[in-house]
């Protein structure tokens, strides 16, 4: 928006005309009329990034809300599993809480609408989470929409060491696992993790507490070079990998303060690492605000 204003100021006697949501500008001494910007473009520029799938911030929520609200206009609210009460979800002020899925009560997590990230097709996934989680004795699904040939998709894994690992699964038994982060964001204290998976360039990256993890040496790392067909019709789950119908115990207790998920199309360009690092740093400091359309 700043650039648009400066351009107007540089023209001595501009004429402005608004028609059908288009803004036109006429230069002095010319007959031509420049279309400055569609109003819809301006909205995109100043509003949440158009590739958002979900933006939740529990700091503004309270017991009785019933859902983990999506702050975008999409309405992709996170809903409670059948084994997670409203009181349990808001038991920790400032967070939405999930319970470790246990036999007989596995639907104790929060489920977001289907994302259908398509890695093999070149899509990109950007995810930022801030909250508290404590590792278990074995690796567990943390945030995911899959984790097997039956449930293809992506999975963020909380290693027993407290590190983050990301995995992609297809329906034919193929799977790809990243290396594990050097930092250990899962230690029961308030931390943040961010990750991006680029299905076009076949890269990935992870940030812990707003800083790129040391395993990357400042550049995106290779991942799943052959591509993985991660398409699915599953929910995206906080605290579990599989959908409710699977009755899986693979999952963990979580306390989420904020969650951002964006899915970029195959035609979208992945922002460079410096841009993503700046975004992750800002989200870590203020996760209640969305990434703007002007960010990249």
């Amino acid at each position, binding site marked *: 928006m700043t650039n648009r204003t400066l351009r107007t100021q540089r023209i001595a006697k501009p004429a402005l005309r608004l028609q059908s949501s288009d803004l036109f500008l006429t230069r002095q001494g010319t007959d031509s009329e420049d279309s400055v910007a569609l109003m819809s473009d301006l909205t995109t520029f100043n509003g949440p990034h158009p590739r958002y799938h979900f933006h939740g911030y529990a700091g503004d929520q309270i017991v009785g809300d019933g859902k983990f609200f999506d702050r975008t206009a999409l309405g992709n609210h996170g809903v409670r599993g059948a084994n997670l009460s409203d009181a349990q979800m808001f038991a920790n002020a400032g967070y939405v809480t999930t319970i470790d899925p246990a036999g007989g009560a596995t639907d104790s997590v929060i489920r977001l609408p289907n994302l259908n990230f398509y890695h093999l097709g070149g899509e990109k996934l950007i995810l930022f989470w801030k909250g508290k989680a404590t590792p278990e004795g*074995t*690796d567990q699904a943390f945030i995911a929409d899959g*984790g097997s040939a039956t449930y293809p998709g992506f999975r963020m894994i909380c290693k027993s060491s407290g590190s983050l690992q990301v995995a992609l699964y297809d329906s034919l038994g193929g799977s*790809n*696992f990243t*290396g*594990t982060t050097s930092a250990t964001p899962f230690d029961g204290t308030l931390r943040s993790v961010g990750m991006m998976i680029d299905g076009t360039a076949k890269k990935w990256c992870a940030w812990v507490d707003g800083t790129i993890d040391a395993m990357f040496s400042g550049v995106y790392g290779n991942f799943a070079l052959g591509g993985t067909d991660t398409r699915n019709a599953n929910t995206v789950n906080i605290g579990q990998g599989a959908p409710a119908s699977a009755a899986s115990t693979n999952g963990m207790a979580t306390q989420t303060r904020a969650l951002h998920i964006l899915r970029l199309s195959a035609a979208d360009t992945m922002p460079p690492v410096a841009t993503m690092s700046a975004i992750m740093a800002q989200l870590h400091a203020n996760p209640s605000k969305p990434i703007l359309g002007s960010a990249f």
Partner: protein
Amino acid sequence: MFEDQELNEKLSGILPVGYSQEITIEDGKIYLVDGDGEPLPPVDF
């Protein structure tokens, strides 16, 4: 790492102790890399 605990046990039986690098499973084989990121010979999975 998998929903299937048998697969998890199978994988843990193959991975070197302390392995923290990338893993690819494709066509019944598991592909690992060494400390420099260079691929190691595949192992039947």
